[in-house]
């Protein structure tokens, strides 16, 4: 389990105070990753327009895979199509996936998407643009964002920057870095001027659901073994008891018979 909590190498810092809902990140992602026209790897979360005219407010923030430190999707995937790399990227192997869509339900952030309109569909999920990272480029969404609402870099740097911003501007930001501890911590970090629930972010505890899952699934082989032994034991014991009983009965009957015989003699 140690490997799961390993700190990611890269991280996003997304600032909801800066996002203007222009969707450049969405188009950039779709083009970079040839995302099918009916699907997307990235969304915009929004508060909607709140307040009464003319005292109105509106906040938005882009939303993609959080790249969990202990990813539930990886834990859940039936086959090994989802994995967490050493850099903390939660990657998807499209050649293995069987399309069970368990990952979609397992993800506590409701991230994985699906190519519903394809005949042979695949899961659609952010992979941190790792092919761009390999070429020394920023992920497509972060690179293009005209307002720098999406920043990308070393995880530690992003985390430190998040804390710096919220501490230095207590009037501007909610005092919480979403993703620092949520579901065991994620490589995607958020700061926001409004509470995260208002942006439509899921509430989350500090351990990943994957942890509970492992508690159960990792115990399963042992339980199975114990059952095999137990059931065999039960069978043999009962069989033995029954045979004993039968023998006893037989013996009893025999004795009874012999007695009768004897009696008859």
């Amino acid at each position, binding site marked *: 389990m140690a490997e799961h909590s390993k700190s990611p190498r890269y991280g996003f810092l997304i600032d909801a105070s800066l996002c203007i809902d222009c969707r450049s990140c969405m188009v950039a992602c779709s083009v970079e990753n040839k995302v099918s026209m*009916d699907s997307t790897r990235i969304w915009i979360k929004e508060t909607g327009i709140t307040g009464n005219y003319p005292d109105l407010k509106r906040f938005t923030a882009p939303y993609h895979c959080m790249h969990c430190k202990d990813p*539930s999707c990886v*834990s*859940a*995937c*039936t*086959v*090994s*199509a989802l994995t967490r790399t050493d850099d903390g990227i939660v990657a998807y192997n499209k050649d*293995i*996936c*069987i*399309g*069970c*869509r*368990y990952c*979609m*339900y*397992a993800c*506590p952030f*409701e991230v*994985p*998407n*699906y*190519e*519903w*309109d*394809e*005949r*042979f*569909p*695949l899961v659609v999920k952010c992979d941190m643009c790792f092919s761009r990272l390999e070429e020394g480029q920023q992920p497509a969404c972060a690179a293009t964002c005209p307002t720098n609402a999406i920043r990308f870099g070393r995880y530690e740097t992003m985390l430190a920057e998040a804390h710096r911003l919220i501490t230095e501007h207590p009037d501007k930001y909610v005092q919480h870095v979403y993703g620092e501890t949520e579901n065991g911590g994620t490589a995607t970090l958020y700061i926001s001027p409004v509470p995260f629930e208002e942006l*439509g*972010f*899921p*509430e*989350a*505890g500090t351990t990943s*659901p*994957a942890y*509970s*899952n*492992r*508690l*159960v*699934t*990792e115990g*399963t082989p042992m*339980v*199975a073994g114990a*059952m*095999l032994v137990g*059931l*065999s034991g*039960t*069978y043999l014991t*009962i*069989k033995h008891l*029954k045979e004993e009983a039968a023998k006893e009965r037989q013996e009893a009957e025999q004795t009874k018979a012999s007695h009768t015989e004897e009696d008859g003699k």
Partner: protein
Amino acid sequence: MFRKLLHELRTMPKFVYLLVALTAFGLTVGVYRMYAGLGATTNLSKEFPWGIWISFDLATVALSGGAFTLAALVYVFQFEALHPAVRPTVLAGLLGYSSVLVILLFDLGRWDRFYNVFAHPNFSSALLEVSWCIAAYSTILFYELSPVLLEKSRWKWMLNVIKKYTIPIVIVGVTLSTMHQSSLGTMFVIMSPRLHPLWYSMLLPVFFLVSSFAAGISMIIAGATVSYWLFGRSLKRKTLATLSWFLPWILAFYLVLKFGELVIANETGGLLSSGRYSTLFWTELVVGAIIPIILFAYERVRYNRLASMLGAFLVMGGVILNRFDVTWFAMKSVSHQTYTPHWMEVAILVGVVSGLITVYTLVARYFPVYEETIAYKPSPREIIQPEDARLVSV
């Protein structure tokens, strides 16, 4: 030969024709689903990636739990009296599992790669456990059922070999089913953010296992009673009564677990205040557990075919609702999306279920499924008035 066939067709119960038609239609839609993909044929979405098919699968597996419950009781715990129930139950179980496998294949986005379940397993996945167990267990069910098919055939000699290994195979089978019945619950252990707290629990695997005992036994009872009227073949009342004796105990244990867990998890507050969810939760338990516990506590009920069948239906209804709740009705989405199945999803499901009933009917008609059971030829009148049936039963 031809005349014989014609005669068979003529004497075939009329509902079989309807079933065959529904099956054919369902499978046609199924072929279209494979051709056109999931988006065009289902109402599944990002927020509801699983739909009525998975709900059906879970309910069916639970109901098919009769097979392993009975196998355990008969072979491991050696309740010889229940032996006559084994064959029909195993047949129902096998067909149940087969339909689950067929539906799963329709459900898999990449059904063309189902073998990756074996080629690239992920051992921390509950779904992997489920798929392996179900695959292995279906094979075992087939093994357990093979005598029925072999007895009348040329390969009769194989029976000896098969019988020789029955016990170890059954033990493995029981283990596998325990595993997957519970793993089906484990699948939802990871969904804490999605599943309503009235259902969510770390104990879900235990809930699923225990409720599958109850569902399985009820299925045997109900199945036997239904086939009693349909085919005139059934289990002895004594056998059924023995079986139903277990029900109140299992269900009571289930209730204790469920409420105990809610108390410990401090979720009792939601029992009455969760609106729709409260209603669903209580329906499940009142219908599926509390009423049946009361019913089956009475010996009169246990020995009455109609009453025990009704009781069994209540339990099954409760468990089915539970599986639908866990997979669908009690599943929340942050975006507040909802799901209602596409007609094609329903058509495929109806097709598969019809196919299942058709096969059951045919096998029960032509193979010695109820060989060790009583034979009874019903008159139409008795079909209409089942309570009279008890007069002639042994």
